[in-house]
């Protein structure tokens, strides 16, 4: 007998908390010329929006917490004020 799922189940989906990129007042900007690919920003990002491959950032979900900029040993990331906010 094919049973229906009757429990309250949730499935993984991107942006489950909404368009969290709209939360930020500042955005991180990476200077690739200073980056040595240590990957500290990647592992410290609470939202996993920094690419492991090339440190590009998914600004749709980046909350602008600034941990990446604070922890980068090369100071390759700086926080820029969002113009429209």
């Amino acid at each position, binding site marked *: 007998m*094919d*049973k*229906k*799922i*009757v*429990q*309250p*189940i*949730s*499935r*993984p989906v991107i942006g489950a908390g909404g368009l969290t990129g709209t939360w930020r007042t500042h955005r991180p900007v990476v200077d690739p010329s200073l980056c040595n690919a240590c990957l500290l920003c990647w592992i410290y990002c609470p939202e996993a929006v920094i690419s492991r491959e090339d440190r590009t950032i998914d600004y749709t979900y980046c909350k602008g917490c600034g941990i990446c900029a604070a922890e980068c040993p090369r100071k390759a990331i700086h926080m820029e004020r969002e113009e429209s906010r």
Partner: protein
Amino acid sequence: MTKIFDSGNAACALAVRDVGVDFVAAYPITPQTSVVEKIASYIAEGEMDAKYLPVESEHSAASAVAAASAVGARVFTATSSQGLLYMHEILHYAAGGRLPIVMANVNRAVNMPWCLYVDHQDAVSQRDTGWIQLFAASNQEIYDTVILAYKVAEEVQIPVMVNYDGFLVSHSSMPFETLEPSKIQEFLPPLNPAWRLHPQWGGTFGNVTPSEEYVPYRYALTEDLKKAGEVIMRCLKEYEKLTGRWHGGYFETYRPEGAEYFLFSMGSMGKEMEIAVDLLREQGIAAAGLRLRVFNPFPEEELAALLPAGAKLLVFDRNLVYGSAGGALLQLAKAALFNRRDSLQVTGISLGLGGEDLPASVLVAKAREMMEVCK
């Protein structure tokens, strides 16, 4: 099929053993204790292939079986009185979470004052948690009802509580028969849920839920609980075909032919009521016994259909709905019979609380008092 002469708790433990449970977690409380002691010994002696988690409280016992049930294990726990109350938030959780848990509740009065003897306040006070509640009154009925409970729970995905009276039934030895594993397997298919907590199924269970998402789950539970009555009846008939045993459907009726007065109760009182009915009949009163076996979902339509025009329903509640005229069965009966437009009457009392002794003579006397009210 083996003939056994042992207690109600033993009957319960044997049913759990024979059903092929995967996981048991329970905490001892008088008068349930020997159920879990027996199960622990069956497992230790290799008679029962299940895992046993010796938890440190009833809240943890309920939490444990709920989580284990979510993984797709067939589970069991047992408790009484304060233990049942301690589980309360998990009872709601399990019903709303549609987890097919089976639990034995050995009815016992609740504190304060502190009392170890039987009444139904513990089970009745949990009525609105969404669990199916069945009441057994003999050791054979306990054994059969526990097996039935698994089939019903797993089909409708609602947890089931099997109640039976503390000491009067739990600690009384009666003859009963167990069922061969092959017959049980015929009756009860393996548990195969549509969703499990497991990487192969994925998903998270029970996130915070916004109102519009929450509502359908609530209505689904109440609708499915209503429909569970039919499932219970169908499974009872299947079980009768398998074993030849029938303890009754929603009710066990005793001498209903030509009856004017129906003595309505639950639990072992319903069995003692048979003697009271015989005594009343000897005195020329057309009395019948009506022992309720399915407390939740309460069989409203079936009760209304069963009572002839002009009947008098005398309700004997072994519980209280504080501040009201009596107990839960009185309220439920009145609600069920509200649309009857004939001269049917309903009255009730609460008695037997805290294990107050209820020999047939007392039941007869109380019945006569209630008959005066109905005049």
